[in-house]
């Protein structure tokens, strides 16, 4: 394990991603800006289709190339990643910035053994081969909690879901990246395995001083692991803040509704579920003439439909995109 050198922060500024197809154009991400400091775990939360996955994919340029257009700036330290030629971008992928995905079953190549898939990374980025590489792989597997030679020789289908995800994590961390992007890594796993993986990530982050961008739709998961949370809706950021504060007291109606809609074990028999009614807006390229959440917002009022609110600071370290006064937010709608 290498000594963490001076770590870089990840700076995303005004990121916009549009997809142009035959029929229409869709702006999946609209003017998103955030920072991830070295060693921070930032959660990116929102419902399906809110643009969180697209955001994370564009960092490493893994979005759908054929139809996507990306504008804005993504910097790792001083280096601009957006627009970087492929030959240079791939030196960063898996090396300084790594990514793990949602479905460990389909993320691994079913035709290759674990050691072959891990070995590629070592060979490519660190020039390691043979015994040294094996050593490193075994160490890494031990760190992610699946020690043993036989794991190396195994094929993905011979491993359980949790083990596969651990392999993916190991693969991502082999080169000690500065930033790990985790796109819903626990969504496809059992609840018990989920918490194991979260513990694992938490521990690894501490040991390595690595920062993590953790994408999820599950607030409970996010609460456990993340220092800060960014809430996205309809392709834009609607609220940010330290996770404890934000989850304790949301300052945006959407975050509030999200929290309320999460089924909790404590709900005694007879407790109701509170889904968020309606559908997210269609995201064409034009500017919104009203708040994106207005159609579904339980706190909608005069002024919400006059134009899209700007992202503003509501308290130290808290940003939100809403005109409802903070004091109102402290009371139920």
């Amino acid at each position, binding site marked *: 394990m290498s000594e963490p050198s001076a770590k870089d922060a990840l700076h995303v500024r005004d990121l916009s991603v549009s997809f142009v197809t035959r029929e229409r154009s869709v702006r999946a991400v609209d003017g998103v800006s955030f920072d991830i400091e070295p060693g921070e775990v930032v959660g990116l939360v929102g419902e399906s289709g809110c643009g969180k996955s697209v955001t994370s994919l564009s960092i490493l340029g893994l979005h759908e190339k054929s139809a996507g257009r990306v504008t804005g700036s993504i910097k790792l330290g001083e280096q601009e990643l957006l627009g970087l030629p492929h030959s240079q971008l791939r030196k960063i992928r898996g090396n300084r910035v790594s990514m793990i995905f949602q479905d460990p079953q389909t993320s691994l190549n079913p035709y290759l053994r674990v050691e072959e898939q891990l070995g590629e990374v070592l060979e490519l980025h660190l020039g390691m081969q043979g015994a040294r590489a094996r050593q490193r792989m075994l160490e890494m597997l031990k760190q992610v909690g699946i020690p043993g030679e036989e794991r190396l020789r195994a094929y993905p289908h011979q491993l359980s879901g949790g083990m596969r995800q651990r392999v993916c994590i190991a693969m991502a961390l082999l080169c000690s990246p500065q930033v790990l992007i985790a796109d819903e890594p626990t969504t496809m796993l059992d609840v018990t395995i989920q918490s194991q993986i979260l513990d694992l990530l938490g521990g690894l982050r501490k040991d390595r001083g690595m920062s993590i961008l953790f994408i999820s739709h599950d607030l409970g998961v996010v609460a456990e692991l993340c220092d800060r949370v960014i809430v996205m809706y309809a392709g834009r950021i609607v609220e940010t803040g330290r996770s404890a504060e934000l989850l304790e007291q949301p300052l945006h109606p959407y975050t509030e509704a999200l929290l309320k809609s999460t089924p909790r074990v404590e709900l005694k028999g007879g407790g109701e579920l509170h889904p968020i009614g*309606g559908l997210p*807006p*269609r995201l064409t390229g034009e500017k919104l003439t009203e708040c994106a959440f207005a159609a579904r917002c339980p706190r909608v009022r005069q002024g919400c439909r006059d134009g899209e609110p700007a992202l503003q600071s509501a308290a130290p370290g808290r940003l939100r995109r809403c005109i409802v006064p903070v004091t109102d937010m402290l009371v139920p709608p």
Partner: protein
Amino acid sequence: MGGHESPIQSPFQLAFRRLVRNRGAVAGALLLSLMTLACVLLPLLLKLDPSHTQPVLRNLPPSSQFWFGTDGLGRDLFVRVLVGGRTSLLVGLASTAVSVLVGVSYGAVAGFYGGKVDEAMMRLVDFMYGLPYMFLVILIMLMFSEKARGDMLPVFLALGLVQWLTMARIVRGQVLTLRRQEFVLAAELLGASDARILVRHVLPNVIGVIVVYATLMVPSVIILESFLSFLGLGVALSWGQLVSDGVAVINPVRSYWWLLVWPSVFLGLTLLSLNFIGDGLRDALDPKART
């Protein structure tokens, strides 16, 4: 703001719209129809006789009198190509019908009952799949050729039995998946008989696939028939026969190119059209598989 609204269309209607947008398929369909009409109607309307020999006019290149030229016995090639087309197209259609009938029945039963029955049935199919089935077909035709002159039925049967395997496999796969779907379970719970479930619930969903593969099978059968004709086992005048005649007179001294070219062109265009239509159907019915 909100979700999409559009008039409700059945999957078949949606598929049809997609099909019509495929220019290749439309062109193919037009060409095929034209070709079929020409082959079936023209000789009838113009009272043309393919076996009318005029030895004094043999081996003439195309001219205004004989559009496609004449063959070694002075017969008008244009007429022969048209009449030959009837055979080739008929064989394609009839044999495919046989394949579809046998294949769908076999595959539906295997897929529907699943388990060991399916395994046993499919083993036989797997085995026969790799066989040069054509081998047996040729044998049959060879053996029965004297008796069978002019009798088309054995040809249809023999050729039809070559292709049923593919159809059986595909239908079985579809039925197997559909069988486990909930709407089938629902029908069972309501007390529907096996046959009823099969016919009313499962088959309509399989029709699409059947149509696609049937269309793609016709070219194979026509080619197989042309093989038989080429080997001298043909039963009636067909494009394959004409091509074989054309090939037989290839020599370095005199080129009777028209004898080879015209039937080949007709054959090729027909098969091309069928392939376009088949591809178009497949894309239309399963756009996710579109590549």
